[in-house]
């Protein structure tokens, strides 16, 4: 008996690094299981979605109909997730997400076939909102690219931050130069800023933030901006900046220590939360298959998945009724490790067993 | 007198359509030769093939004894051929003055060499319009510019393809006079022009082309005398 998994990830264009991390994490999980998840010979068909929703959909159809995969996994971006979600769950194929967690899927449109080892999109932003509130910041500027995830992030941040938002800045997607925004920040002198600037935008912003002399003066809170995918480029300029994350390489549990060590050994670079999520996805599938005794009984497998029978690299991990994780969320900080690599490090735990905001809308139990 | 340009058995085509079927003629140093023939007979094509602007299928082109067959056209021009092309082909995005100096050269140290001043002296109209873009010139002005541009390369052999098209009678006459003067200075010239009468007094020899072949060659006197050639090939 064998197992075929279709793994969809963005592997081209500037955000390819996220997809590559996620894929590498997943493949590491498969490899550690000796190439046999749940004891089944596992074949992973990795497919590049090119960040084109309609193209991704075609590829998913191919995986479902032609390659007849048993399961689907992966997906970095929400817009791709939304495009492929319907055909996957309609075909009653189990999907184990490893990053994107858009709110409709957590809420109204939730499905018994969908599981994710990452988070609901808002979570890490919420953590920073809470952190800002706890830190006593009264006036803040928030900044995100002008697209749906950006707006969601700011909504998430505001959920727990009750102080004044002096300015909400929406930048262009893929923006290069932030001098205009930095000037605004310098002029408004907020207590702190919160930004969501994934990928290259984050690199540009972090560098320019430091160059404009703001780094030491206005605390920099972020999500998906300062992590192991961008630190190789920002290096020292990012050290000390804060981010919200549900995982960091230094989380103190055995599974994580083993993961980080073997990941760096295998690929030669530091894993980010994308890699951790990918890895957990493979481990989750492994655990559930073992528990259900194979892939044949789908109902049993789904029931098994729901129980999250695996050691997450996050330690404390369980599924909510909408199949999104209930997990702890931290504030992490960028640091330079002794070996010269730049990584994130936990500073404090903001939420214990955080539940996402949309689970109430999901009519599944 | 030494042979300057020799064309032997030149064949050329556009795509599948053969246009030249073994053109052969020669020009001696200091000679003025014309290519004559009706529209579409291959005069321009001959010139293009000699200049290396289209590839010849067969045949030889020699200049001062050196073979130029297959050479790129800049080499051929550098060997001393200066072209006034059909249809002017001045550079539209260059000013008049730039058109003249851009490709200007005096490769052989010609004694009374053509300079900007001399060209302007010859075509005062160009001096007036020196700062205008090439495509802002009138048709005749463009023609003057094309001639001036070729002269500025100080060639050993000047090739004029319909160089007086669209020029006013006065200017046209001045050009004939100028060519005569150049000839006296020893300049070799190959002319294509429909003004057979003017050419008869200017040129030493005439080459009549029909359907891509040379059908008649001879001196001006012979041409004048041979009414049948004039009638058959030139409809004069």
């Amino acid at each position, binding site marked *: 008996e064998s197992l075929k998994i279709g793994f969809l990830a963005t592997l081209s264009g500037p955000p390819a690094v996220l997809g590559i991390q996620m894929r590498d994490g997943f493949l590491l999980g498969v490899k550690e299981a000796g190439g046999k998840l749940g004891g089944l010979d596992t074949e992973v068909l990795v497919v590049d979605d090119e960040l084109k929703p309609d193209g991704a959909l075609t590829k998913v159809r191919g995986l479902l109909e032609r390659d007849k995969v048993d399961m689907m996994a992966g997906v970095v971006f929400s817009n791709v997730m939304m495009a492929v979600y319907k055909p996957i769950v309609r075909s009653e194929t189990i999907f184990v997400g490893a990053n994107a967690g858009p709110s409709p899927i957590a809420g109204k449109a939730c499905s018994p076939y969908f599981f994710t080892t990452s988070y609901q999109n808002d979570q890490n932003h919420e953590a920073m909102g809470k952190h800002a509130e706890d830190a006593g910041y009264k006036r803040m500027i928030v900044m995100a690219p002008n697209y749906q995830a950006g707006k969601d992030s700011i909504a998430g941040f505001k959920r727990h931050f009750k102080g004044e938002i002096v300015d909400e800045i929406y930048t262009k997607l893929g923006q290069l130069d932030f001098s205009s925004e930095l000037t605004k920040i310098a002029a408004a002198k907020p207590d702190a800023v919160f930004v969501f600037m994934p990928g290259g935008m984050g690199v540009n912003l972090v560098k320019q933030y430091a160059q404009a002399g703001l780094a030491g003066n206005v605390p920099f809170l972020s999500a998906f901006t300062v992590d192991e995918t961008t630190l190789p480029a920002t290096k020292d300029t990012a050290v000390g900046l804060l981010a919200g994350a549900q995982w960091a390489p230094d989380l103190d549990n055995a599974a994580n220590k083993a993961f980080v060590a073997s990941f760096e050994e295998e690929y030669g670079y530091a894993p980010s939360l994308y890699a951790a999520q990918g890895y957990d996805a493979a481990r989750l599938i492994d655990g559930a298959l073992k528990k259900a005794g194979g892939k044949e009984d789908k109902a049993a497998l789904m029931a098994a998945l729901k129980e999250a029978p695996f050691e997450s690299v996050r330690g404390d991990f369980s599924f909510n009724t909408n199949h999104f994780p209930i997990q702890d969320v931290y504030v992490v900080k960028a640091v330079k490790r002794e070996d010269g690599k730049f990584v994130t490090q936990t500073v404090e735990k903001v939420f214990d067993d955080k539940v996402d905001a949309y689970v109430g809308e999901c009519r599944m139990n | 007198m030494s042979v300057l340009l020799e064309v032997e058995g030149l064949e050329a085509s556009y795509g599948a359509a053969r246009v030249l079927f073994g053109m052969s003629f020669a020009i001696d140093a200091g000679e003025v030769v014309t290519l004559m023939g009706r529209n579409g007979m291959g005069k321009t094509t001959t010139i293009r093939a000699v200049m290396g602007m289209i590839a010849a299928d067969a045949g030889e082109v020699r200049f001062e004894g050196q073979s130029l067959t297959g050479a790129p056209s800049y080499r051929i021009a550098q060997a001393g051929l200066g072209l006034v092309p059909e249809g002017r082909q001045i550079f539209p995005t260059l000013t008049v003055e730039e058109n003249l100096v851009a490709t200007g050269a005096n490769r052989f140290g010609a004694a009374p060499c053509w300079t900007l001043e001399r060209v302007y002296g010859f075509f005062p109209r160009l001096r007036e319009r020196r700062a205008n873009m090439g495509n802002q010139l009138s*048709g005749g002005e463009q023609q003057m510019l094309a001639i001036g541009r070729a002269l500025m390369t100080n060639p050993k052999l000047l090739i004029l393809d319909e160089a007086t098209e669209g020029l006013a009678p006065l200017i046209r006459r001045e050009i004939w006079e100028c060519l005569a003067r150049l000839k006296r200075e020893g300049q070799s010239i190959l002319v294509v022009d*429909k003004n057979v009468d003017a050419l008869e007094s200017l040129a030493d020899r005439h080459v009549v082309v029909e359907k891509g072949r040379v059908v008649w060659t001879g001196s001006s006197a012979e041409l004048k005398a041979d009414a049948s050639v004039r009638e058959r090939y030139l409809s004069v």
Partner: protein
Amino acid sequence: MTEPILRLQDVHKAYGALKVTDHVNLDVRPGEIHAVIGPNGAGKTTLIGQISGALAVDGGTITFDGQDVTAKPMHLRARAGLSRSFQITEILPEFTARENVALALQARQGHSFRFIRNVARDRALNEGAERWLGELGLAHRADTPAGILSHGEKRALELAISLATEPKLLLLDEPMAGTGREETDRLVEVLTGLKGRYAMLLVEHDMGAVFALADRISVLVYGRIIATGTPEEIRESAEVREAYLGEEGAA
């Protein structure tokens, strides 16, 4: 006296300090061939451009067929019966010679918002086109893409297109330039044949053709008309000789 078909009053235009047409007054009578001659750069092509509508005038009025067309765009003037040929050949190089002329015929028939019938099979257009090509000695070239015709043939095609619009007034900008002896003779013959049918404004440096064809000649020098008259009068004028003709007029 009959009303002129074309009348220019005070037409002028300048590029910076250069007065290309300087208060030109000129008329063309029905059926007449009126030649405009003058040195290079005198403004003849500019004048044709202004009459045809390709260039705007700085001032003055152009009256065509009783209507003030000064402000009308080029295509409307063409539709009203003003057709021009170009000094620098302006043909459609990818079209065959036949298609070039057929398009002119199609334009003459009126609007072309017709999506249904295959125009290549339109007998009326094709035959009409071939007739004009025949008149100009291009019948054997009907299927040749215009772009690869020889220079002289292109010039003839240029004229065929203009003629095919069957205008009331034909503006000819150096139709003989670049054509060989034989073709020039043929053109003179064709134009002579059309004389009386169309009025023509002829710009030409080939004095043989001008004197053979023109009923009246105007001489344009530096944008100004310095003389208008019959061929004989012009030939006699010392001023014209000095400015333009040189010996040739006398010949």
